[in-house]
């Protein structure tokens, strides 16, 4: 088939990109070559719309061993231990085929982590669905949860945390972001840069099939009514093979035969081989007849573009092939020498003794298009003048119960009970907490991890929203007594060709960067997912931030459940009563306009560090950050988890009690302390200039708010517990 402009456009390339390809090659590419270009130059692989903005991100820090640009980021957690981690989106495939889409998302991110030599120790996910009333939501949610569980459970890696939200902006584009943390010795990290010529290039893992061809291009396009036709572009997961691949790779990595290793993720053999060669400034030659294939008569085009899962590409030291093959034979996995590194700086493909493609690597990688797209700033919305008289009709207890039972606030136990969260025997804080915490096996250390996003704030004002979500991640890690170290981000946005969407991206990234710099909380890995749009309707900007923190002595870890009646409850950080964009404003007052709460990075840092001081002095019995639903929702969640009651009395401040209790001002925590420690706590707070309110105490079972009639804690438990279960199973 002769390649022409129309075929290039059918491959998702723009007309001018096709012209550029022909110019760079000084000829028209053949079909295989065009396929390779389309795979390397799509948004998903080339980051062409995001690259210039991502460059600005704060990616350096004392604890950073590897920042963005590798399979995953790596941070130092002392004693030669390092954590490898990354979050990645699998949004488009999960909407088309929720089970396989989500499953292979989890499989893909785990491969990114163990490719670097790390054994995965924790999984998390951030999943977002359309309105609960939308006819597709229930099945999508069921499929995604089953898919995430199906893959992670079989691999034997605990899923320790996550986040689920519902919003009508996801009706046509759900979000499925999967995150994995792995543990590695910092002196034994593996990278993807190929070194040396004439080194054997090895293919290991599953055989190559026709699944997932053009998956990366599909993930770089908007959806229309023909979406079901895209099903064949979704990959099929095989967690059993991945488990074998994990064990086989780690076994091979224990020796010294690997020069570089790269998993075959998006754009399969194409991007993995080109990335390895490009990073090493080498060429690569592949004989496609040697690639283990699952189906007959696969063409070079199909072999290069397949996104079959559970495959790896390895550059080995010469002469180590036989030893390496033994390991893969033991695990019953394919092992084939399919090519070698060269000094040509070209990718050269052979099939049936003919050269079927020849492209200089720099054209594909460095010369890939980069766009500085037009974007529009989002103005900070005006504050809403709420009619405080309307509040008089409201009863705090009723509002609280309603908020606790909202889809975005209620318990997500129905979801996380389907994930194995205790395998590996080191999970010391389970899902449903501020952060998941796993011990570093055999040591006194533990890592805390959480994933957060705040699409409502980001939608109202992307710059503030970007900052806020980093701060929320930081607070979640602080709340369990860990020192936050670094983040990974999954940037889910609409169509970058629209100025508004592009502006949301640019400003969210700016916000993330500002907070990340101020908090010394660098970004070490991440992924961008654009084109989350269906028939002109895009999602709310949803950057998801995955954070990792270190607890040096896990015996000092703090949990959020209230412990003992008689203990005091304090709010740390100043309450201004900001209710615009709050759960209270949106769901109770039905007011969706206004600015998100202000983020004060100085207070954020100071308050967080002071909480850590209190925890280190053993003064904190429980802690939880204040986020959606404000102070009273935060205290209620601590009470629900601890099966305790509480008594609150609003301090004498000039703030309406609804604003006080439901406002979503940032930088705040709730802590429980013993009465005898009050003066010590007060001193530390004052010495560090941290504002605090003493608002109440823990009771056995009664919930009393400002002397109003008593509610039993079981009522709050019931309000919070059943929404999702009822929605899914009844």
């Amino acid at each position, binding site marked *: 088939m002769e390649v022409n402009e129309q075929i290039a456009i059918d491959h998702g390339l723009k007309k001018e990109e096709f012209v550029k390809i022909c110019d760079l090659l000084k000829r028209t590419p053949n079909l295989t070559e065009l396929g390779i270009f389309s795979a390397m130059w799509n948004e998903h692989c080339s980051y062409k719309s995001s690259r210039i903005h991502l460059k600005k991100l704060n990616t350096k820090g004392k604890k950073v061993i590897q920042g963005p640009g590798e399979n995953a980021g790596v941070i130092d957690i002392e004693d030669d231990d390092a954590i490898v981690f990354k979050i990645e989106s699998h949004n488009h495939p999960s909407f088309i085929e929720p089970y396989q889409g989500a499953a292979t998302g989890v499989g893909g991110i785990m491969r990114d982590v163990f490719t670097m030599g790390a054994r995965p120790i924790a999984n998390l996910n951030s999943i977002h669905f359309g309105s609960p009333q939308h006819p597709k939501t229930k099945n999508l949610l069921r499929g995604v949860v*089953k898919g995430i*569980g*199906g893959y992670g*459970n*079989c*691999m*034997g890696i605990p899923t320790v945390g996550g986040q689920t939200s519902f919003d009508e902006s996801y009706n046509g584009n759900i979000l499925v972001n999967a995150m994995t943390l792995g543990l590695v010795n910092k002196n034994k990290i593996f990278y993807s840069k190929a070194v040396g010529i004439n080194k054997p290039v090895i293919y290991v893992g599953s055989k190559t099939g026709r699944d997932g061809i053009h998956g990366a291009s599909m993930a770089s396009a908007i959806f229309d009514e023909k979406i079901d036709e895209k099903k064949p572009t979704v990959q099929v997961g*095989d*967690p*059993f*093979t991945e*488990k*074998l691949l994990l064990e086989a790779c780690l076994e091979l990595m224990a020796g010294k035969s690997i020069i570089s290793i790269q998993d075959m993720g998006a754009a399969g053999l194409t991007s993995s081989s080109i990335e390895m060669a490009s990073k090493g400034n080498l060429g690569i030659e592949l004989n496609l007849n040697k690639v283990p294939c699952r189906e007959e008569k696969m063409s070079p085009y199909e072999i290069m573009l397949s996104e079959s899962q559970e495959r790896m590409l390895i550059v080995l030291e010469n002469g180590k092939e036989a030893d390496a093959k033994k390991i893969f034979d*033991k*695990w*019953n996995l394919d092992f084939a020498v399919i090519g070698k590194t060269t000094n040509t700086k070209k990718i050269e493909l052979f099939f049936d003794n003919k050269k079927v493609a020849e492209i200089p690597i720099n054209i594909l990688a460095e010369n890939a298009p980069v766009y500085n797209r037009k974007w529009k700033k989002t103005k900070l919305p005006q504050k809403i003048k709420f009619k405080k008289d309307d509040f008089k009709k409201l009863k705090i207890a009723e509002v609280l119960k309603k908020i606790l039972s909202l889809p975005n606030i209620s318990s997500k136990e129905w979801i*996380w*009970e*389907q*994930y*194995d*969260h*205790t*395998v*590996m*025997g080191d*999970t*010391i804080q*389970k899902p449903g907490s501020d952060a998941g915490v796993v*011990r570093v096996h055999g040591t006194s250390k533990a890592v805390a991890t959480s994933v957060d996003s705040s699409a409502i704030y980001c939608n109202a004002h992307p710059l503030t929203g970007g900052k806020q979500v980093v701060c929320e991640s930081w607070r979640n890690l602080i709340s369990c007594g860990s020192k936050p170290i670094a983040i990974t981000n999954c940037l889910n946005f609409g169509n970058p060709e629209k100025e508004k969407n592009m502006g949301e991206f640019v400003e969210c990234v700016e916000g993330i960067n500002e907070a990340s710099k101020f908090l010394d909380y660098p970004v070490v890995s991440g992924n961008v997912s654009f084109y989350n749009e269906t028939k002109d309707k895009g999602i709310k900007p949803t950057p998801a931030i995955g954070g990792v923190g270190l607890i040096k002595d*896990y*015996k000092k*870890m703090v949990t959020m459940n209230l412990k003992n009646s008689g203990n005091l409850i304090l709010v740390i950080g100043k309450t201004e009563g900001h209710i615009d964009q709050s759960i209270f404003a949106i769901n109770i007052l039905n007011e969706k306009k206004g600015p998100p709460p202000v983020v004060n990075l100085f207070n954020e840092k100071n308050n967080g560090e002071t909480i850590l001081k209190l925890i280190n002095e053993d003064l904190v019995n429980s802690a939880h950050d204040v986020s959606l639903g404000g102070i009273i929702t935060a205290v209620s969640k601590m009470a629900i988890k601890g099966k305790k009651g509480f008594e609150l009395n609003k301090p004498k401040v000039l703030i309406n009690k609804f604003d006080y209790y439901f406002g979503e001002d940032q930088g705040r925590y709730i802590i429980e302390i013993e009465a005898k420690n009050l003066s010590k706590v007060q001193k530390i707070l004052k010495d560090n200039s941290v504002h605090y309110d003493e608002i109440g105490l823990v009771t056995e079972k009664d919930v009393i708010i400002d002397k109003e009639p008593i509610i039993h804690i079981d009522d709050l438990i019931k309000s919070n517990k059943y929404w999702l279960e009822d929605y899914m*199973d009844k």
Partner: protein
Amino acid sequence: MKSSVIIFPGSNCDRDMDVALKKFGFKNQMVWHNDPEIPKSDLIVLPGGFSYGDYLRCGSIAGKSKIIKSVIEFANSGGLVLGICNGFQILTETGLLPGVLLQNKYQKFICKNVYVKINNKENKYFKNIKKEILELHIAHNEGNYFCTEEEMKSLNDNDQIAVTYCNEKGKEDEQFNPNGALKNIAGIFSKKKNILGMMPHPERMIDKYLSSNDGNFFFENLIENLK
């Protein structure tokens, strides 16, 4: 005391079991499914996981694997064989234990803490155990124990029901049955009580920083009884 944990491709609780056995004093060895024989052992453990991916019926391929012949011989000669979760499924597939483990009644994988009551203490596993009700952890998709009426009669007649799901006070009620298992069965013995298969994972509950440490009672007692 010597123990051996068999690793099948797809096993994923093998390390957890190894850690637990060693913690309580066993000299444990890991045995690969293709190894020709099992080293001399006082206890053989089939760990949890997804042997061979469990793409066919759970445990069915492991039940026909090379190593399993030695496990069956060892069991038939009176040796102690413990199967946890997938290990329990494998034991029913080999016929060493009666019945089958069907998909959970609510058709979902379920991972949570449960209470189980020990029904029979006249055996090496539970003799002298210091607690009647243990808080353990389940994590499975196929733990819904089922058997024929004759098999159930035989289980009852021979006191083979080992542990049953209950609440913290030991009440065995349908509402405390997480997966639909017949008679709330969480684990059963062979007739001679040398083989125990159970869905809950004692190896995940072995120190106070985890959500329970009742697994300690199980392992401490087991090694004591083997001495």
